[in-house]
């Protein structure tokens, strides 16, 4: 039962929160606003704040290209593989380093930290050769291996904190109550990890969703392009004319939207489904 003073504070904080939200979302609004305006208007010296007289012509033009959906499919496939496997691998490793002492543990922990410092400059030749040598160019699995390696260290470290915060006794108590180890894990441990999994999952998803350089190199065919490659192609679609920024912004909006669906989906699943399941258990 909160006191009124607390509620007044909440109102003030809420207002601050909304203001921050508006500031942060303004460039995004500007992208959407521009996507509804014709290119000619975008070159005006006075900004157009509200797209009166705007149209979905830019979006129609983007879809007319016919290459958006295949690229979306490719990106979704890669993101799904990477997010699922990355969370799984990282969770297992987090379990190992937070619940066990073993020889090589500190070496592994140090490696996890240092690997993130490896710079990617000039790596693209080696990455291409690697993928070409095992015939994994243009394949979901090839690029997914590179992506998982890029996001798994952070995820391990992130989940390590969460796993360490969960006492094993909790699970064991549940097992005494007659649950199997799997049940105990799914109902007790997993829900407590949910916030960490959501944060790491969103991180992994976005890293993959917007990655450009690796994709450019190991997905050389047009047919296997991901959304960032598709978007780049779109910007350069007509070098013989000026770039149509209205269309580019429409295309960018289409790239950004699925992320929101992913987040709402994950968020909804994590908070409602799993956590309430935990309480029932």
């Amino acid at each position: 039962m909160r006191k009124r003073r607390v509620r007044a504070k909440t109102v003030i904080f809420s207002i601050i929160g909304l203001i921050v939200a508006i500031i942060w979302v303004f460039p995004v609004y500007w992208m959407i606003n521009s996507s509804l305006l014709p290119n000619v208007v975008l070159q005006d010296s006075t900004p157009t704040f509200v797209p009166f007289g705007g149209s979905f012509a830019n979006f129609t033009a983007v879809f007319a290209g016919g290459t958006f959906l295949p690229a979306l499919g490719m990106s979704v496939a890669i993101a799904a593989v990477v997010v699922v496997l990355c969370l799984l691998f990282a969770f297992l490793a987090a379990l190992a380093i937070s619940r066990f002492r073993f020889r090589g543990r500190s070496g592994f922990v140090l490696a996890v930290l240092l690997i993130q410092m490896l710079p990617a400059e000039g790596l693209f030749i080696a990455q291409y050769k690697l993928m070409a040598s095992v015939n994994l160019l243009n394949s979901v699995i090839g690029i997914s291996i590179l992506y998982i390696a890029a996001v798994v260290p952070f995820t391990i470290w992130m989940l390590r904190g969460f796993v360490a915060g969960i006492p094993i006794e909790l699970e064991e108590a549940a097992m005494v109550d007659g649950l199997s180890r799997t049940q105990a894990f799914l109902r007790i441990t997993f829900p407590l990890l949910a916030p960490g999994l959501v944060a790491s999952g969103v991180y992994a998803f976005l890293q993959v969703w917007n990655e450009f350089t690796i994709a450019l190199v190991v997905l050389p065919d047009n047919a296997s392009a991901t959304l960032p490659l598709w978007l780049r192609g779109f910007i350069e679609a007509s070098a013989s004319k000026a770039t149509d920024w209205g269309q580019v912004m429409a295309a960018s909006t289409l790239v950004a939207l699925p992320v929101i669906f992913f987040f709402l989906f994950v968020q909804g699943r994590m908070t409602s489904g799993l956590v309430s399941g935990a309480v029932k258990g």
Partner: protein
Amino acid sequence: MTAEATIQSVRIAETPPAPRLARRRRRPIAPYALIVPSVVVLALAMGYPVVWQIITSTQQFGLAQQFGQAAPFVGLQNYATLASDPYMWTVILRSILFCFAAAAATMIVGTLLALLMNVVSAWVRVTLQIALLLAWAMPVVAAMTVWNWLFNLRSGVVNWLLSAIGLPYQGHNWLINPVSFYGVALVIVVWMSVPFVAFAIYAGLTQVSEEVLEAAQIDGASPRQRFFGIVVPIIRPVISIVLLLQVIWDLRVFTQIKLLQDVGSIKSETNLLGTYIYQLGTGSSNFGMASAVSIFVLVLTIAISAFYVRSMLKEDEA
């Protein structure tokens, strides 16, 4: 996250920390089995490229070598060239300053937003989260285009707003002066990285039990004491890794600087490590140099963060 989760975490907070699992020493294979997937994927993805990079950094390796000519071994010459380039050290100094400014600003704003998310009603929090997520999800090229528009000297919203309130900013060129160039870059970099920091730290905060905080309040702990005594220790692992990542990323920030340079500014006055090493290596198809630069930056990153990484490891051992 929800009331149930909070209750769960109270139970955790009230349980004494588990004794380190001595009894599991009987089964020493388990932890290795658990890290195998991660180790395998890291080895597959990083092994060959890293070895290739180390070898190439000691060679004269340009486009001709990529097309099959033998690569002459030059020892540490690529490194010597780098270290003896006085401009390189200017760029390193600039980059370290920029990195610390950007990482500090990002961490402060990100932490404040995470704390804010914790105290507002659910719908405000989701609104804020979606706003941050949208910013995070915006394709970099679209984000940079929009930011370039906003700061455009002729049609930019920033100049428009400043002129509208009577300031002499009509046609003001933000990019030609290196200091204001870095200012603009800083705003953009912070805007782009705060969502990640806020999300991660907010996730950490969900482990903090509200009841424990209230109990501490009743015991007379000040908000400051509560924050540093209860909240910070719990979210420290998250903060530490997020800060490390920020430092790593901001030290070699590339895309934002490159795309700003493509619009305006004098390159040599606004180069940071990311753009300069790109220009030295990949931009000139000098892959031997590019590899040397990578190793060099790796060493630099380790040097900058060694102290910090050590404390992270110590904390991990504790």
